[in-house]
C-alpha cells in the first residue's frame, strides 16, 4: 500500500473483495522481544471475528491503533495476505504485524508556553518495564515564576486494555501565583483509575497533597497572608470527558463536555466539595466559517465549619478566557491580589472565519483564523447558597455583577494543542476592583474558552 498505483489497484478490487467472505486464519506478530504474548493476544482478538475482507482491513487498522495506544511500539506495519501452507483455507487470511519495540529508556523534553511564562519539562520514560506496557516516568519541570516540579509516575493498562488503566504518582511542585500574591509548595501523591463507559472517558483519582502557602512579598494583602501556612488535602476527584470535536485548537464541528467533581474531606484539613463543568459546541457555516459556543461554570462549598483556602478557589479572567481582563482579574480583590470566588460562570460566543482575502489558503494560511467574540462571566462569593435554598438576593447580586467584553482578533494555531491570540477587546461591563485591560491583548496557552 505504499505507492499511489497500489492504492489504485486495491481500490479496484475493493468492491469485489469487500463482500467476499473471508476470515483471519492466523495473526502473526513479529518483532516482539520484551513484550509478553498475552497482552498482544488480548488486543488482536477482535480480528478473529471478521467475516469479510473489508472487515479484516478495518479491524486490522483498529487493532493497530490500539497497539499504538499502548505506547510500547515505535513502529507498527500491517501486512495482509492470503494464508499459505498445509492447512491453508481458501478464504483464510494471514494478518501480520511487523512491530518495533520502543527503547527501554526514552528521554524527551517539552516546552510549555503560557501567559507571560514558559516552562521546560524533561522526562525519562521506560514504556514497557515488565512486558505488559507498564510505564515508569520521571519528570522534572523548570519554569519562569519559580516553577519547579519533580514527579515519579507509574501507569499500567488493566487487562491489556489501553483505555482502562491504573496509575500512581508522587510529586513535588512549587510555583508563584503573582496575581494572588502567594507562592505554593506542594508535596503530593495520587492514585488514578481511568476507564471508558458508554458516556465517555472517566477518571477516578484519589489525591493527598500537603500544601505550603507563603506570601510572595510584604505587599501581599492581609487577606492572603491569613491563609499562609500548611494545609493537607485528601480528596476524591472524578473527571468525565466526552470529546467529539475534530480538532482541539480550531475545531469545525463536534462538542466537548468536561465535568469534574472533587470531594475533599477524607482526612486532612481542607474540606470542600467542588463541581465544575465545561461545554463547547462547534458548528460549521458556509464560507469556511465556524460558530462556537462555550459555557463553563463551577462551585466550591466548604464542608463542615471551615473556609475554602485560596488555592482551592475559582479564578476568572485572562486573554484566553474572559478576554479584556487581566489574568484572574475578575472577582474579589484585596490590595491588588485576587482572592478567588467560590462560584464562577462564563460563556463565550465566537465566530471564526478565514483571514480576509484568504492569504496562503490551503497551506500556511490554515494556521490562522480571524475571530469575533463576545465573552461574559462572573466570579464571586455566594454566601449561604445551597441547592435547596437559593438565597435570592445574593443570586440577584451575582447576576447584576456580570462582566461582558467583546472584540475581534487573529488566532494562530501552535502545534496540535496550543494557540496564540492577538485581540482587540473592549470590556464593557466591569465591576469596581476588577483588573481590566481594554485594547490590544495577547494570549498564549493551551486552556482557552
Amino acid at each position, binding site marked *: 500500500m505504499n505507492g499511489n498505483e497500489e492504492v489504485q489497484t486495491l481500490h479496484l478490487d475493493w468492491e469485489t473483495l469487500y463482500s467476499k467472505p473471508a476470515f483471519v486464519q492466523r495473526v502473526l506478530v513479529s518483532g516482539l522481544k520484551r513484550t509478553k504474548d498475552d497482552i498482544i493476544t488480548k488486543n488482536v482478538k477482535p480480528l478473529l471475528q471478521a467475516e469479510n475482507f473489508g472487515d479484516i482491513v478495518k479491524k486490522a487498522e483498529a487493532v493497530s491503533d490500539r497497539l499504538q495506544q499502548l505506547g510500547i511500539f515505535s513502529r507498527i506495519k500491517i501486512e495482509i495476505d492470503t494464508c499459505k501452507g498445509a492447512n491453508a483455507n481458501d478464504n483464510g487470511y494471514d494478518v501480520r504485524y511487523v512491530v518495533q519495540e520502543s527503547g527501554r529508556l526514552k528521554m524527551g523534553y517539552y516546552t510549555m508556553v503560557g501567559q507571560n511564562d514558559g516552562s521546560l519539562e524533561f522526562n525519562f520514560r521506560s514504556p514497557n518495564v515488565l512486558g505488559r506496557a507498564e510505564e515508569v516516568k520521571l519528570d522534572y519541570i523548570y519554569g519562569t515564576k519559580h516553577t519547579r516540579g519533580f514527579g515519579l509516575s507509574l501507569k499500567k493498562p488493566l487487562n491489556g486494555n489501553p483505555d482502562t488503566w491504573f496509575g500512581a504518582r508522587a510529586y513535588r511542585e512549587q510555583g508563584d501565583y503573582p496575581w494572588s500574591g502567594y507562592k505554593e509548595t506542594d508535596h503530593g501523591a495520587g492514585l488514578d483509575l481511568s476507564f471508558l463507559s458508554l458516556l465517555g472517558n472517566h477518571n477516578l483519582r484519589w489525591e493527598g497533597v*500537603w500544601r*505550603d*502557602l*507563603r*506570601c510572595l512579598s*510584604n*505587599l501581599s494583602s*492581609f487577606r492572603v*497572608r*491569613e*491563609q*499562609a*501556612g*500548611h494545609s*493537607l488535602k485528601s480528596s476524591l476527584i472524578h473527571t468525565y470527558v466526552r470529546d467529539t470535536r475534530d480538532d482541539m485548537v480550531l475545531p469545525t464541528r463536534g462538542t466537548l463536555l468536561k465535568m469534574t467533581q472533587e470531594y475533599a474531606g477524607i*482526612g*486532612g*484539613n481542607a474540606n470542600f466539595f467542588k463541581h465544575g463543568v465545561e461545554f463547547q459546541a462547534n458548528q460549521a457555516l458556509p464560507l469556511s466559517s465556524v460558530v462556537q459556543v462555550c459555557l463553563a461554570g463551577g462551585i466550591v462549598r466548604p464542608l463542615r465549619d471551615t473556609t475554602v483556602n485560596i488555592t482551592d478557589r475559582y479564578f476568572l479572567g485572562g486573554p484566553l478566557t474572559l478576554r479584556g481582563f487581566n489574568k484572574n482579574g475578575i472577582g474579589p480583590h484585596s490590595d491588588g491580589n485576587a482572592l478567588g470566588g467560590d462560584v464562577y460562570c462564563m460563556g463565550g460566543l465566537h465566530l471564526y472565519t478565514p483571514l480576509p482575502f484568504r492569504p496562503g489558503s490551503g497551506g500556511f494560511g490554515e494556521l490562522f483564523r480571524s475571530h469575533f467574540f463576545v465573552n461574559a462571566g462572573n466570579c464571586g462569593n455566594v454566601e449561604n447558597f445551597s441547592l435547596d435554598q437559593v438565597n435570592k438576593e445574593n443570586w440577584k447580586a451575582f447576576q447584576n455583577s456580570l462582566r461582558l467584553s467583546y472584540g475581534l482578533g487573529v488566532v494562530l494555531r501552535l502545534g496540535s494543542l496550543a494557540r496564540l491570540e492577538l485581540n482587540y477587546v473592549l470590556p464593557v461591563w466591569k465591576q469596581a476592583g476588577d483588573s481590566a485591560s481594554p485594547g490590544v491583548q495577547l494570549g498564549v496557552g493551551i486552556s482557552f474558552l
Partner: protein
Amino acid sequence: MLMEAVKIEMGATERWPDNVKLYQQYQAEQITFPDYAASLSVKTFLYMCGLEFSTVPKINAEEMSPSGRVPFIHIGPFLVSEFEPIVAYVQTRGFGLNDDLTDVQKSELKAYIKLIGSTLVNAELYLSWLVPEVYEKVTKARYGAMYAWPLNCILPYQKFLSVQKQLAASEWKNKTFAEVCEEVETCCQALNDRLGTQNFFFGKKPTELDALVFGHISTLLTTDLPRNEFADIIRRYDNLLVFLKRIDAEYFDALRNSY
C-alpha cells in the same frame, strides 16, 4: 529580628488605633516556649507603654509572620514582627520607654538586648529542640498539635532541621548541654550584676530591656519541662527573682484582676 515595619510610610494616622492585634500560636496547646517567651516580652512591653491590644491566636501565626517568626502585630495597614522592630515601630508612633536615658545608657540598653537575643534565645532553642528528652516529650507534640497526620510528624521535623541549621550557624549546635548552661549562667550573672538592687535596669522606670528580660526569664522559670537546669540557674540570682516578682505584681496582677 528581621524586617522593620513592613510598610514604612507614616500617614496621618492616629497615634494608637483601637484595633491593634498581636498574633501568636494557640497558647494552651500549640506554642513552643521560645515563641511564648518572645510573645510574652512583646506583651509586657506594650503593657508597660500602656497601649491597648488584643491577642489573636492563629495556628499559622508563624507562617503568616512577615519575618517567619512570632509574634507580630497588625496595626492599621502595618505588620511588624519580633521584639526589636516592634519596639522601634512603637517609638516612631510616639511611645517609648527610653526617652529619659542618656546616650551611653541607650547604647548599653541595646547591648543588653542583644545579649538576650544571642544567649537566652539560643539557649531556649537549644533546650526545646536539641535536647532529645524535651524535643520528644514536649516540643514535638506541641509544634504539631494542630495538624493532622502526617503533617504532625513532618512539620516538627522540618522545624527541627531549620533550628539545627540556625544554631549551627551561630555555633551553638555543637555545644554540650553543660556548656549551654554555662552560657545561661554567664548571661544571668551579667543581668543580675547590672540590675543590682535597682527597681529596673535603668533606675526607677521600666525600659524595653525590662520587658525582654521578664519575658524570657519568667518563661524559663515557670515552664514545666523534663529538664529544669535553666530554672535552677535562675533561682540562684536573687536580684533577678525580686525583679520578676516586681514586674509581675505591677503589670500582670492588675490584668488578672480585671478579668
